[in-house]
């Protein structure tokens, strides 16, 4: 009986730690987005970075790629991770989540910010 109780406790502890790890990952992801938010918005307002229809950010012109790469690289990497996470939570595909986030960012974009549409063309909002 003691062995059964011990096994039950061990299983409960492992499940608990797994759930905590999952929450910590999402919280860490959110912190990374928050840390980059101001810098990303500044680059958008300067016209160096824009949102794309695929749900990621890109440098508007090749000459801005070097300066913007320090932000767009980690941002896109974290977005990919977020889309995978939300896809599992909602039962959708990561591409579907990315498309919805793209639509969301397009609607939230401020006038003057560059947006790369599905046809590959950059247009100012």
């Amino acid at each position, binding site marked *: 009986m003691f062995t059964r109780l011990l096994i039950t406790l061990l299983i409960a502890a492992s499940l608990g730690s797994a759930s905590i790890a999952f929450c910590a990952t999402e919280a860490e992801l959110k912190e990374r987005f928050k840390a980059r938010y101001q810098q990303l918005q*500044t680059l958008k307002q300067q016209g160096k970075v824009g949102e794309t229809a695929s749900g990621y950010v890109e440098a*508007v012109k090749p000459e801005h790629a070097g300066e913007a790469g320090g932000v767009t690289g980690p941002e896109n990497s974290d977005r990919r991770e977020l889309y995978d996470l939300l896809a599992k939570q909602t039962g959708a595909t990561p591409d579907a989540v990315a498309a919805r986030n793209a639509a969301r960012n397009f609607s939230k974009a401020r006038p003057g910010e560059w947006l790369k549409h599905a046809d590959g063309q950059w247009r100012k909002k």
Partner: protein
Amino acid sequence: MRYLIIMIAGISAAGCLRMKVDPIEVKPITLNVNLKIDRELDDFFDFEHELGPVAPTTGPSTAPSVAVPQQPIITTRPAIQ
């Protein structure tokens, strides 16, 4: 003649028959998933409301600069005595 009447009656009766077809249910699965995704995204990015919009920078911008017209200098005429 009898067979003709029976045939006409049969055809007329067939016209009164109604086929019952179960309505096709189109479940709004895509719509529900999109709403769920939108809600999850809004919850995740709630910090954007907390941080607020970033103030426009005075750094180099690709937007064309607009010249502000100078206000005309208005002078008053001295009173004629």
